């Protein structure tokens, strides 16, 4: 690995003894990411779309390949040598990911991604509401008049499963309103969370505004009312050190492909006590203890949620991605992204007609910036940047209600990660400065 940094302490785990990531470190890191050396439209690629999906380092690609070349087999079934090796690798990966987020291994359920994980919780609660899961599951059952609370800023993946759950149980879906820049505070949440609230679901970090939710305050508000807390951690787990036990949330979801890992794998975290009481959403092979022609007993978590063939090589690769991030240090990643976001904000603030959404300068913000360009549609902005090799996301970023609230149909989003250079940010800012002129708006 080429990301060695001056250190007087244990280089793993991101202890403060590691020097902050600078452009020289980042150039070293980039050598691990072949995709970043691509040329697009004759220009060097500036990949500023990591909030959508991240590039993968060779180490992750190699780990998946090595597993497939030497120990591929079905897991948790079969008694041959490869089956044993594969099962061991699969469960070791679970332990690695668990330790990474401050959880224990039996609290980590493999899913196909965060969307799948959030659906697993919502449909598990729906099943409990319809009487499945026996006495242990009654704690989850919703009745008409119960309330599910989300925020107006949610990604559709953390909104629509709750809409469906409300529709099938008679529960009422309520939302915490956001202000004119798309953020909210604990007071706004407190006005919506009541004794009828049974579930509070929200994003730790907004994929549109970069807003960092006040998790501790929200958890306290919800738990005081006896509500469960479901955290969409897609944009936080890859970018900052997270301890889920310390955060005190009941469930959390994140995706592998947003943290240097493969697509097709994600994680549902649930407190052990809750996971073992929640009825399964998908049923089938490998999640049962005994089966008769009339019924089945389910295994304890996490296996009860892992019916059917599992994404084994993806789990192995995801664990390698986690080790890669740990070797760099999550605190350094977070600090670096903060600097890059500041640089973007400073640059964009100089450009007439650019309206950045999200927290004002100086307030906590993740390493992403979404903005409107007066008179120019986001798709046209994205196309203009793409011609210069700059990859950004355009559209509503799967958050239509938030965009509607902001009076916009689409924005342009640039998002940074540990491999983003300051030159890329500068190239991006310079190009944005030319957009309105090109389209005859300035």
């Amino acid at each position: 690995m080429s990301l060695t940094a001056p250190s007087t302490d244990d280089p793993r785990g991101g202890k403060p003894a590691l020097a902050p990531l600078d452009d020289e470190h980042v150039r070293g890191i980039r050598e691990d990411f072949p995709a970043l050396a691509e040329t697009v439209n004759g220009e060097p690629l500036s990949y500023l779309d990591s909030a959508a999906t991240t590039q993968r380092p060779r180490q992750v690609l190699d780990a998946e390949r090595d597993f497939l070349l030497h120990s591929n087999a079905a897991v948790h079934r079969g008694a041959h040598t490869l089956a044993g090796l594969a099962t061991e690798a699969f469960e070791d990966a679970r332990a690695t990911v668990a330790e990474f987020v401050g959880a224990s291994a039996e609290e980590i359920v493999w899913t196909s991604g965060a969307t799948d994980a959030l659906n697993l919780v919502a449909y598990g609660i729906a099943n409990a509401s319809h009487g499945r899961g026996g006495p242990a599951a009654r704690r989850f059952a919703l009745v008409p008049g119960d309330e599910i609370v989300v925020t107006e800023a949610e990604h559709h993946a953390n909104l629509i499963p709750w809409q469906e759950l409300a529709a099938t149980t008679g529960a009422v879906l309520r939302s915490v309103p956001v202000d004119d820049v798309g953020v909210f505070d604990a007071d706004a949440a407190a006005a919506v969370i009541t004794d009828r609230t049974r579930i509070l679901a929200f994003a730790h970090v907004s994929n549109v505004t970069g807003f960092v939710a006040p998790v501790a305050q929200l958890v306290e508000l919800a738990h005081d009312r006896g509500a469960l807390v479901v955290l969409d951690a897609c944009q936080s787990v890859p970018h900052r050190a997270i301890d889920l036990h310390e955060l005190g949330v009941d469930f959390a979801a994140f995706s592998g492909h947003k943290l240097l890992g493969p697509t097709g794998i994600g994680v549902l975290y649930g407190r052990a006590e809750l996971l073992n009481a929640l009825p399964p959403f998908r049923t089938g092979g490998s999640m049962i203890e005994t089966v008769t022609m009339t019924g089945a007993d389910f295994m304890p978590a996490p296996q009860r949620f892992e019916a059917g063939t599992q994404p084994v090589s993806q789990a192995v690769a995801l664990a390698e991605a986690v080790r890669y991030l740990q070797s760099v240090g999550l605190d350094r990643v977070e600090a670096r992204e903060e600097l890059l976001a500041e640089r973007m904000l400073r640059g964009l603030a100089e450009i007439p007609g650019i309206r950045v959404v999200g927290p004002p300068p100086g307030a906590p913000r993740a390493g992403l910036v979404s903005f409107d360009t007066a008179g120019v549609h986001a798709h046209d902005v994205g196309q203009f940047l793409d011609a210069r090799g700059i990859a950004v996301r355009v559209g509503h970023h799967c958050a239509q209600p938030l965009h509607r609230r902001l009076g916009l149909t689409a924005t342009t989003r640039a998002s940074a990660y540990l491999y983003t250079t300051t030159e890329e940010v500068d190239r991006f800012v310079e190009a944005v400065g030319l957009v309105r002129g090109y389209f005859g708006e300035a």
Partner: protein
Amino acid sequence: MVDSLEGLYQQHILDHSKLRHGYGHAENPAAERFERNPTCGDELTVQLVLEPGSDRVAALTWHGAGCSISQASASVLSELAAGLTTAELGEKIDAFRAMMRSRGGDEGDEAILGDAVVFQGVSKYVMRVKCAMLAWVAAEGCLKDVA
């Protein structure tokens, strides 16, 4: 290279995206269709107004919001449609779709498509074809409604 953009954003397209010919609301359209592009949230409503007792297009009006390609394409379509019979408009829509699906292979017949041939460059940008087609698909729906 920024030069590569010129094939996509021809000056005529940029002009039409500002001009927005036919933008507005018709009083009593013979047909009206709404189309959206779910990937970007663009929304467009097309209204077909016919000459009284005739299958001739009096006006094709449209309103909505979207990118420069979708707005320009609606503008060009509106300009093209006025005065045509519904059958003639249908033929032009077919020709436009064939060109847009050609990934640059179909140059477009100016005798049939008029100014709409400027969108030929867009057909190479697969992600933008839907933007250019939006108004035309809505117009096609209107023709079905009055058939």
